[in-house]
């Protein structure tokens, strides 16, 4: 993820879908869940902060209306951070990025850390199977519940055929 994602332009098409998905899941997770996962991590990696967490505004764009033209819905607060994993030999191995809604610096940093860890082939499978899958399930369920509730209020409009 780079500056273009921050400045409200479309998502980077070069980023693999899997990474986009885990970034989304991590960003929507609760801070407590990520802290717990970090505390539970057996061998914590060494890392250095490439970009300290900083809060800013992003323009949210929407497509509503008959023509589907994008329009600027409004701005929201977002916090971003970037970290680099440092190996035992002092070499940097992977860089991770975190972008979260709101002002939680720690949340952004944890997302960046897990993003970096998930790019590490040696750690990816274990983390994807436990952390990402576990976080995604309740998020998915909440989304389904929300959708069902919204669906219950749906009104189908139709025009009755007028009698002769």
């Amino acid at each position, binding site marked *: 993820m780079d500056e273009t994602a921050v400045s409200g332009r479309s998502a980077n098409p070069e980023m693999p879908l899997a990474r986009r998905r885990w970034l989304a899941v991590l960003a929507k997770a609760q801070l407590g869940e990520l802290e717990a996962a970090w505390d539970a991590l057996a061998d914590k990696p060494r890392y*250095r902060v490439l970009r300290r967490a900083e809060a800013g505004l992003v323009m949210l764009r929407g497509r509503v209306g008959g023509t589907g033209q994008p329009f600027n819905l409004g701005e929201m607060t977002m916090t971003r951070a970037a970290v680099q994993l440092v190996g035992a030999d002092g070499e940097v191995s992977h860089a991770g990025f975190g972008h979260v809604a709101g002002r939680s610096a720690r949340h952004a940093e944890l997302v960046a850390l897990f993003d970096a860890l998930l790019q590490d082939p040696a750690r990816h499978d274990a983390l994807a199977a436990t952390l990402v899958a576990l976080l995604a399930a309740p998020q998915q369920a909440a989304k389904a519940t929300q959708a069902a509730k919204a669906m219950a209020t749906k009104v189908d409009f139709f025009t009755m055929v007028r009698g002769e």
Partner: protein
Amino acid sequence: MTGLTGTQRSGSADFARLELGFADPVHDAQSCFRTVLDAMAHPGSVTLLQGSLAGLPPAPLGPAAISIALTLCDIDTPIWLDPASAAADGYLTFHCGAPLAITPDEARFAFIADAAALPPLDTFALGSDEYPERSATLVIEVSGLVNNAGILLHGPGIRDETRLGVAGLPTRFWAERQALAELFPRGLDVLFVCDNKLAALPRSTRIEI
């Protein structure tokens, strides 16, 4: 928010290889800004820019040039890099958030690592009479900077006159700079950097060659 135009591009970076920027972004940028301000207010004086970069500056740009970039450049200031310093593009776009200008005249800041291959000065944006600030600031890496020797300078910020010795600059630079003087208030502001040393040559300074 400013979008990229057709003549700008964003840098390409392998983020795992990026070096760190300022150790303390806010205070380091403030102290660097003060140093650059003092240098611009006293043209021709060589000052030390106390670098506090947390990592190595991306070669061939030195700590002073990079500190200036981290302090002054952002999304509103397109940067032009000469071919010698092109490898710093990922670093500068990441840490400054600045777009890269493809041609020199698009740039608000130009970083020149190879002074010998400096493009003619009038290829950079010189501003207009109505908006003289819409011009470029050149940051030129030179091989040596000394006070009280070399070219004779006078003008605002200089009591009587002073001398600035710049090594590694093509001789045509001074003739081209002389030619720009009569365009004032249009013109170019130049920052010479050498490792962690800095000297300024703002457009208001008159030179004698």
